[in-house]
């Protein structure tokens, strides 16, 4: 069971995408690969949820997009973190840390 790719915790995908984009702007495939690499293969992302998340984040003004050429000189849509997105990432990271710590405390006490 443990070696199969896991589903993401509800609502965390947006945060992970923002985190990925915090380093540099990236196209859709790049984001998927980066997430999988960083999670060491724990997460396997479905294109459907990924692109819905892009649309959602874009409409919320947390990311914006631009068409650019890739290193292989292919045209791709790059996503860029906005100032608002950066702020949201910071606050969500803090919140996440608090929650994880709290959950860990609860689990350890028993």
């Amino acid at each position, binding site marked *: 069971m443990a070696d199969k790719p896991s589903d993401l915790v509800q609502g965390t995908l947006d945060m992970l995408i923002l985190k990925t984009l915090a380093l540099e702007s990236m196209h859709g495939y790049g984001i998927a690969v980066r997430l999988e690499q960083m999670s060491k293969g724990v997460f396997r992302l479905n294109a459907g949820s990924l*692109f819905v998340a892009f649309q959602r984040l*874009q409409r*919320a003004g947390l990311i914006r997009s631009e068409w650019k050429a890739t290193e292989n000189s292919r045209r791709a849509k790059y996503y860029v973190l906005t100032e608002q997105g950066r702020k949201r990432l910071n606050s969500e990271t803090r919140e996440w840390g608090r929650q994880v710590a709290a959950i860990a405390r609860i689990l350890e006490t028993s």
Partner: protein
Amino acid sequence: MSLLRSIAGGLRSLFRKEQVTQELDEELNSFLEMAAEEKMKQGMSRKDALRAVRLERGNLEVTKEIVRSAGWESFVETLWQDLRFAARMLRKSPSFTAVAVLTLALGIGANTAIFSMANAFLFRPLPVKNADRLMVVAARTSRYDPPIPLSYAAFLDYQRQNNVFAEMTGYALDLGGLGTQGHADRIVMCYVPSNFFTMLGLRPALGRLPVPGEGDAPRSAPVVVLGYSYWQHRFGGDQRLIGQSVNLNGQAVTVIGVVEKGFKGPYATVDIDAYAPVGMYGAGTGSTTFFTAREDSDFRVLATLKTALTAQQAESALNIVAQRLAQQYPQTDQGHIIRVIPEGLARPEPAVSDSVALVTTVFLLLVGLVLLVACVNVANLLLARAAAREKEIAVRAAMGAGRLRLIRQSLTESILLAAVGGAAGAVMGNWACRTLEQVRPIGDLPIRIGFTFDWRVFSYVATIVLAAGILAGLAPALRMPRTNLIERLREGGRTLIGDSGRHWLRNSLVIGQLAGSLIVLLAAGLFARSLARAESVDLGFDRHNLLNVGINPGLQGYDQPRAEAFFRELLRRAKALPGAESASLAYSVPMSYYNDGGVVYAEGQASATKGRAPGAGFNSVSPEYFETMRIPILEGRAFSDEDTAKTDRVAIVNEEMAKRLWPGQDPIGRRFSSISASGPFVTVIGVARNAKYNVISEWPRMFFYLPLAQNYKQIRVLQMRTSVPPETLIPVIEAQVREMDPNLPMFDVMSMEKSLNGGNGFFFYKMAAAFAGILGALGLVLALVGVYGVVSYTGSLRTHEIGVRMALGANPRNIFGLILRQATILVSAGAGLGLVAALGVTRFLSSLLVGVSSYDPATFVSVPALLIIVGLVACYLPARRATRVDPVEALHYE
């Protein structure tokens, strides 16, 4: 910000759909290519790589759908598709659409009209400051009496002693005469304390309003403020009027201002012509009892509740004050119970507001029932169409349309129908209101009903449109999922009689419809019977061939001697007219809108009767009154010309008053007073038969008559008993009055029979009977359309079966009987159910009916019989059609 961006993004997807789709395609393609490239670097063939990506990441076509349907715009898009599809379907069958729209328009139109009236009468707040905290304060003089206005003296006490209202004001409603340069009008006016305007936050449209304290003391400020409409139509909006002197009830007063346009006055339904300071009350007659008499009930109190207090809390607080006052003034205030009622719930009078609310509720329910019947009709039509469209729906389901999607489509269609019907209905309802606005319930008074299509009416109509659309579409929509796809397609639309589920539904809808319309019809029948009973009630006088002419010489500033001379001459001329049998004068007309009344004290009984003295109405009349009205004098004598201001004060009492004040004794020669327990007294010289005095529905009440010669009134009504139709004498008598004084206005010039159609007469019975009748007719027609539709539809479904029967030897008579039997069961079941329901419902009408029980057997037998007969007639045509089926053709058809 992000909401705006989301809307912008959605709009972009909606309106630049191609570009957005293309972009998404391109993006996903590049995603696919990049992923495949990765795999190919590891040595896979391109084909295998693409397959692997699809396995890992999901099908990209599906991804596109998911992304596309994730935004809100996809909902709008489907809705738009559904709407276009629904509109196309409705256009395709214009006769179905026309019938459904017309049905809904009738139902919604009737609802709009009734609601607009309720809105105008009850729901719309006064356009004043703090309208939500505005209360009416009224007093019940005993536990059994309805709440009535206070006396001005009591108002002052409550104003001083209460701690629950931010402010208290009020008004005394009166008829007055306002004249300028030889022309006088009879007007409706309010006498108000100076804080009336400030408390209600009113502004002048012109000039100024009274300043605080101005005119509150008796006779201190001879000024007047005009109502906007009166200023417009009487003075043409002349701005120079401000500062000018006019004649108000014979007193010279200065016009200081005009009140703002939006404010029509504090009394629901009457457009007030003028406002005078409360200190001017009675200035024309020289009487100042208004300011001190605690037994009066002329002052309608308005109060602004302090924030965070409720009407109940205010009521309890005021009743503590009331107990204090009862100790202080036991003669007049004993037993008073104060009521604090939100202004909107106390219209037009706190005493009758309960029945106004009841009438409104009853009619809203009846009209709601009519709408329900209309909805069922449309539901049945939709069901029939759903059956015809079964194949189409099955195909759509097979193509992948989900159940919810199909239900949504079906509801979109019925709501669209309801919206079109609602638009037509709103126009119809508005038209009905305009027509109703022409109806004048009381004489010449400036009645304002003011139907306007405000947001309340609009949201009500929108709500019932939505409800009607959902109601009508629900039955066919809910049937969607139950349709077994494969079977429908295989059957090829052929439905045998075995489809009992749908028959059950359609039949019960028709039964419910018949039951609903029977309830409405029964209510209509009861109101009609009630009107007939009210009209045949013994009024105690002869209403036929009687003409009334109202005159007030005070409008031209006549003093008492001049007015009395005028009336003597008028009476002489009236009696001499050809066609006039007799003529008399009186202060008030029975069942009209003003009358006298007060408490009476029988001489020597004041200490014997505990608590309050009993109340009685009275009228001041000339000697010929009883002859002209044909009211029999049972004992003693009528007034004569010998009873003058110089002789003994006399009175004639009615039977009821004689019986109640002097039970078992001869009333002639007894004395009573209408002023105080210690007199002055008047002597009873005669007993008149009981009659109706104030309202048609009243029980025999105490009443007495005083001679005009001993009780001067400047407002008088000339009444003429005629030998010709009374209307024919109107121009003749008007010419006579004009000859005597060309500037003197006459009012309420009409026959007694017409006068009896006023607000206290038959008006409400007629309106109720007319409304209920229209609703009943509407319900009946709609129910018949429903029965006809269902019977002819099932007839057409059974064509095949009937063909088989006829081929096997059934004759047309058998077939006719077969169809009719089914129809009879339907109609009788509907009538039976309606009858049972109505028996439970009509008792709520009992307080609105006169002389008719709410279980009136005649109505409860004849109306259902009518419904059954008419229902069967509606079945006749389809049943006849069924007998004409040609067996060969019917069998071929399959």
